[in-house]
């Protein structure tokens, strides 16, 4: 995950002709539950392989997960939905497994949309041109 973030940031900075990458906003979706400390550690290790990201500050932005039921249109958060430790781990690896283990609290349907907070994405990049 960290490798994909740092690689994407460097590639995007290159296409945007940023001479120096200073800051990148990294959205952390609640559903995937990526460990922030491990992620930052991995970023620091990988930074050595990507000189373009040498001076870049990666700002982690937490995004709560939100779902919208396709069957009854009910909108609901992740908090309060029951899942076992194993199920949480499966969702961590593949967030779409939420459809297997979670259901709409109102109508019990597994047919819902992950509206926000699925996983990791890059929201912005700052740098010198």
């Amino acid at each position: 995950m960290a490798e994909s973030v740092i690689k994407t940031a460097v590639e995007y900075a290159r296409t945007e002709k940023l001479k120096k990458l200073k800051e990148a906003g990294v959205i952390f979706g609640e559903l995937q539950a990526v460990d922030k400390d491990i992620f930052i550690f991995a970023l620091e290790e990988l930074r050595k392989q990507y000189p373009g990201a040498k001076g870049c500050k990666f700002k982690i932005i937490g995004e709560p997960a939100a779902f919208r039921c396709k069957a009854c249109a009910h909108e609901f958060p992740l908090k309060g939905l029951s899942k076992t430790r194993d199920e949480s781990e499966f969702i961590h690896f593949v967030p779409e497994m939420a459809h297997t283990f979670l259901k709409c609290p109102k109508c019990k349907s597994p047919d819902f949309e992950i509206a926000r907070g699925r996983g990791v994405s890059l929201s912005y990049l700052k740098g010198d041109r």
Partner: protein
Amino acid sequence: MTNIDPRPSVIEVRLSKVKRVIAVTGWKGGIGKSVTAATLALLLAKKGHKTGLFDLDFAGASAHLILGAKGLFPKEEKGLEPPVCGGVKFMSVVFFSGNKAVPLRGANISDAIIELLAITQWGELDFLVLDMPPGINDAALDVIRFAGRAEVLAVTTPSLLAHDVLARSLELYRKMEVPVLGVIENMSSGAGLKGAAAAIRPDRGLEKALGRPAALLKTAFARDLARAAARLHVA
């Protein structure tokens, strides 16, 4: 800027040490794609090739049953290292679904495929065999998008319906410039192969060998498939 999904950037890296990607497809359900894909992977591994098998049929995942992949789980090491079963590195959504149904809509299937392609550390492989779902759908389009080097190995049956659907799929692959290794007719009587380059005869012993890689490799099905694979230059 709109949010950027970073995962596609590493898929090429994950597949960079894979020499050949063989997508076993056929578009109709129930024609033996999964048994063909899993047995092909076992045959390739038996010949000494470093081989992986990726079950992309999320709704009808069954390659784990064919391989007898019980009690296995990928190892977490800078992503996920697939467990080895019958000498084949194996990845499937069943590792994460607890063998429950996976009710995914199209965009979710695509997201799950991208996730698994991005996190799976295949390492060095001579062959990565893809067990494709029926139809032209998100899985098929994602494979064409992310595994651009994929070569199609098409499976059909003597049924008119299977042949007709297959003809349409081959036409699309031709338009999309996806190389097609050839067509294997499964459950074949051997008479009048319509466009198929190789045949696999019905094998009553196949069902009993499912879940046991060593037994599977001894079936008439595996022998016919080995001949077909050689004829189609898979190995």
